[in-house]
């Protein structure tokens, strides 16, 4: 019994050992078997390739066929491996070769495939295939002994440096040219031109006769823009403008300008620096600072529907809020904090008097808060509230205003402005509103049009009401023609109210 137990115990131990052995051996044998199969498959494949090569070699050593056997008219001597026609000429072939047409066809196909491959290779390799050398900005870590590492080590500090690297990038000639032109453009001063011709007529429809009735006016304007990148996130911009011609505002007095371009007119037939400033962006480019000769209306009281006399309404009463009070450009600073969320903030200072003898004179200080809203499931709307102080008269006079543009539909925008400003005798008030249209409701895709109404009421009793409609036709990417019809009525300027109908054109080229 004892022996029997002993034998069983031995058997069990044996089983245990077999088990452990299986754990160790079977995976290895499984891998080995798999590898052996793979190896055999490879050997079989190699054998097949060798066989095919030998066949091809044997065929290549066969004597040249008769010149009669050609492919696409090419003498067969030039294509020794393509000497087996399969068409109507096959009947004339020697009987010994008639047994291999399929093989010949196969050879031809292989040959064609090889030619295609070579053409494809040539198409690739005839471009620049040399390793390309380029300089990259890299971050390295430098220890106190000046030793540079590509990873952080104790006691090291991160340093941004530049290093050359060579890469295998194949580029076509056109890509290289495009790259070179792009680099050239980035490092040079960009020049832009905006030229406009604005003929307008005046028809007096109410009031005592004036000399303007029935007269035609024309103002031509040319702006030259210069833009240059001078440092990281820093830009220089200058706008030199020249104007010539008599505008209607010289003969038709009003609270606001009939032609917004007239605001740019300093002296006829002379070039004037309209703007010249440097812009830099700080704090992850959330704060933009513009300093130099500025036009603060480019930053404050903006409006998507009515803000630009070169492309939208031409009446100054619709382009800007007269309550802002900025009459001319001047030295100043504008700070725009835009965290790219729904709210943005702006503050700015600008001198608006060309006769000022120091920067302390005639300073306009402005602040604005802007908010992006989407009320009542409408499209986006921009709402702005601003305040202004002006020391040009020796006392600080204030003005406040709002400006909004709200999309009612993708192609319709409602806009409006209100402003009130302090004057010698009380407060002046200005209102404007209108609609602008684009897409869908136009002849050409890039056309826009709008209708607007503005009203000004001075504390002295003078009053102005104006209506304007325009259609801006996009003739080409760089050329636009717009048609304007303005109606002005003025109170308090003449003994009786006067009103004018002013039709006009604006031909504008930008490039």
């Amino acid at each position, binding site marked *: 019994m004892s022996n029997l137990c002993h034998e069983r115990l031995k058997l069990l131990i044996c089983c245990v050992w077999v088990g452990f052995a299986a754990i160790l051996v079977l995976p290895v044998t499984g891998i080995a078997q798999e590898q052996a199969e793979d190896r055999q498959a490879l050997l079989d494949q190699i054998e097949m390739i060798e066989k095919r090569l030998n066949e091809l070699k044997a065929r290549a050593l066969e004597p040249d066929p008769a010149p009669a056997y050609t492919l696409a008219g090419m003498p067969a001597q030039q294509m020794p491996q393509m000497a087996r026609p399969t068409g109507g000429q096959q009947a004339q072939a020697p009987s010994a070769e008639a047994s291999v047409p399929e093989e010949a066809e196969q050879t031809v196909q292989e040959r064609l495939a090889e030619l295609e491959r070579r053409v494809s290779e040539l198409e690739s390799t005839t471009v620049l295939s040399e390793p390309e050398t380029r300089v990259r900005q890299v971050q390295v870590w430098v220890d106190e002994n000046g030793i540079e590492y590509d990873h952080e080590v104790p006691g090291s500090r991160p340093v941004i440096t530049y290093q050359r690297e060579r890469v295998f990038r194949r580029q076509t000639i056109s890509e290289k040219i495009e790259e070179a032109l792009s680099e050239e453009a980035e490092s040079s001063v960009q020049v832009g031109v905006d030229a406009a011709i604005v003929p307008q007529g005046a028809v007096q429809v109410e009031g005592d006769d004036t000399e303007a009735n029935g007269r035609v006016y024309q103002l031509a304007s040319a702006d030259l823009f210069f833009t240059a990148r001078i440092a990281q996130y820093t830009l220089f911009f200058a706008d030199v403008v020249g104007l010539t011609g008599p505008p209607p505002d010289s003969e038709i007095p009003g609270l606001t300008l009939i032609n917004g371009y007239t605001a740019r007119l300093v002296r006829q037939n002379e070039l004037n620096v309209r703007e010249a400033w440097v812009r830099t962006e700080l704090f992850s480019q959330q704060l933009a600072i513009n300093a130099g000769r500025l036009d603060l209306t480019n930053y404050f009281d903006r409006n998507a529907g009515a803000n630009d006399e070169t492309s939208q309404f031409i009446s100054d009463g619709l382009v800007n809020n007269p309550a802002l009070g900025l009459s001319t450009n001047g030295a100043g600073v504008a700070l725009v904090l835009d965290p790219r969320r729904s709210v943005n903030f702006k503050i700015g200072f600008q001198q608006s008097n060309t006769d000022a003898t120091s920067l302390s004179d005639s300073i306009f200080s402005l602040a604005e808060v802007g908010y992006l809203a989407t009320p009542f499931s409408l*499209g986006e709307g921009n709402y702005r509230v601003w305040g202004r102080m002006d020391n040009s008269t020796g006392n600080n006079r204030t003005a406040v205003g709002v400006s909004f543009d709200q999309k009612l539909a993708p192609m319709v925008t409602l806009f409006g402005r209100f402003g009130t400003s302090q004057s010698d005798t009380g407060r002046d008030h200005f209102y404007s509103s209108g609609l602008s249209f684009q897409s869908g409701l136009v002849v050409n895709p890039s056309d826009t049009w709008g209708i607007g109404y503005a009203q000004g009421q001075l504390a002295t009793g003078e009053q102005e009401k104006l209506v304007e409609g325009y259609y801006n036709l996009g003739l080409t990417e760089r050329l636009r023609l717009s048609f304007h019809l303005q109606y002005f009525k003025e109170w308090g300027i003449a003994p009786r109210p006067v009103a004018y109908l002013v039709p006009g054109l604006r031909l504008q080229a930008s490039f």
Partner: protein
Amino acid sequence: MSNTRRLMGIFGLTAVIYGALAGVTVPAQGIKITDPTSVVLIVNRDSNDIGFMDLKTNTMIGKVFLGNNVNPHMAMMSPDGRYVVTGGTRANKAYIIDVPTLTLAKVVPVDIAPEHLAFTPDGRYYYQGNPDGDTLSVIDMASMTEIKRIAGFAEPLNVTFTPDGTKAYIGNYGSHWVGVVDVTRHELLKKIQVAAPPGVAKLDPDRYLSEIKGINNASITNDGRYLYAADSDLGVVGVIDTREDKVVKVIRVGKDPWRAYMSHDGRYAITINNGDETISVIDVSSNRVVATLDAGPDMTGVNFAAGKAFVISSSTSFVYVYDMDSLKPAGRIKIGTNLQLETATTDTADEKLYLASSTDHSIYVIDGRTEDVTRVANVGLFPWGTHIMDSKDNYCH
């Protein structure tokens, strides 16, 4: 004693069975990736390889070198996760990579400058667009050969299959039409014109003749019913009904729209308009633009995560963020300085973005919720794009 023997017997038998099973279940040597959904692919254009990075640890598992001057453009994983395919733009070849072993399984000669590609939903074929050859290569994944080359396109960029896999829609950047391909026969069936150039184009022939920027991609809705094809030159998005293969609506968006990106919930299509540096948000149910929002220059793509849209501005090193509930801007993320951002993919949980940054050879992982950014450096030279299996934001530029 009897119990002891029984126990030992059971133990011995268990050991034998385990040993036998171990021989079957232990992965073969050389297996590097067992779960294809656990990696992000990185297309390294200048080091000419495809990198594989672990999604959990953000560490590189390996790279598959394709050859010098191959310059891969876009990579995609097969629906079963077994293979990765990529087009070697400057080698005129398609490359098929075996994912488990990270080895090059096959190189297939195709037409000139292969770039974007897509698999049929069943994974049987993949269509490789060859924009410079104006063709599509049909690669059979069973034989790993090009079984057909479909001609007749004009700079075919992207391929979109219908969910049932019967048709493919091809964006032609060199024209203003979308090609419809019968996937059963691999034939170009018809050309759907998205919109005609405006009549005023006659006054400005130079603009329309010098260079054409047509349709990059036809982006499909979640139900597969409609396609949104943006035409860059014309500044419109054509909505195509896939049942009738006709344009049912033309929506005007901003200038020079690159393509439409579909939000994951299927409510919106966003176009990035590089001409006026805005994005247009299209409500898919009403097919109208519900918001046009300021963005940045040189935008290359849109990703969706954590209820937000992330818009990549390539040259500014910023990613612009938009709240998809309020359709308002929600700030922007500064990725770095002097970087060139390329494209990104989003993980399947819609939580993290994997953004390729080519000039510093890095991948930036952006947490969609917190907007924290983690840099993974030295992933390869000039990473051009990323891809995650089953991600809804797999695209290229």
